[in-house]
């Protein structure tokens, strides 16, 4: 699970390079996110626009990433595809995150 990381001012954008965040990728995703968050600023935006498949393991991994946040740090989501958005909505985990329509929306948003 490769992650593409870029900085936009105080915002760190993380973009999984693979299209599947599933049972096979979940553990490595969590590990990579943990080390990414350690060096990130106050806002971390997870851009999921390239992820077309997310299962319960992938969802659990995204939720677990919140444990790695420091005080004052926030994890936000952007660019959910319809299949990924459905999983967040059905599980009601869409209520646990700030979700932006796209990355541009996330970068324009206030912290």
């Amino acid at each position, binding site marked *: 699970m490769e992650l593409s990381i870029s900085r936009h001012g105080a915002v760190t954008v993380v973009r999984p390079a693979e299209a*599947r965040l*599933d*049972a*096979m990728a979940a553990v490595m995703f969590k590990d990579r996110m943990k080390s990414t968050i350690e060096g990130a600023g106050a806002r971390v935006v997870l851009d999921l626009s390239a992820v077309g*498949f997310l*299962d*319960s*393991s992938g*969802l*659990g*991994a995204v*939720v*677990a990433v*919140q444990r790695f946040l420091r005080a004052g740090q926030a994890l936000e989501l952007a660019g959910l595809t*319809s*299949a990924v958005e*459905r*999983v967040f*909505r*059905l*599980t*009601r*985990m869409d209520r*646990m995150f700030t979700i932006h329509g796209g990355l541009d929306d996330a970068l324009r948003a206030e912290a």
Partner: protein
Amino acid sequence: MRCARRHERHVIAADPAAVRDLLIRLEQGVALAGLTPDERDCTLLVLGEVLNNVVEHGYAGAPGWIGLMPGPRRDGRDWRIVDHAERQVPEGCFRAEMPEEAAEGGFGWPLIMALTEAVATRRRAGFNVMTLQMRADTAGQDAPPRQAGAEGGLQAGACGG
């Protein structure tokens, strides 16, 4: 309507990589070609949850195999899953509710129940046989999970996923 081939069946090793490869093949294959994109996505999600549940909780790390084949309707929404794991699906899984708080697990079975109209399991001659039918409408996906049919032999226990 395009239908699954009459004799289509898949047998894979019980590991997450094999599950992923099978889902990719199904996504590109004829079995789901008659479904809408939303129906296809939901079917792939449910099959992934079921297959990974067998890997993680049925075989629990032991080597094994899983068979997947279309059910009698052969419309892409009707599936049968067979395995030889010693552990069956715990009965409690069919009543599992979506976690209320931010949780790192426990979503798998509630998702399965939310997206299917029927799920049944039975143990026969040492094999676990699960049949499932996907919901025909994707508009009603927010409906609360319901209890599935179980034909006997189910174990009480914790539900993974």
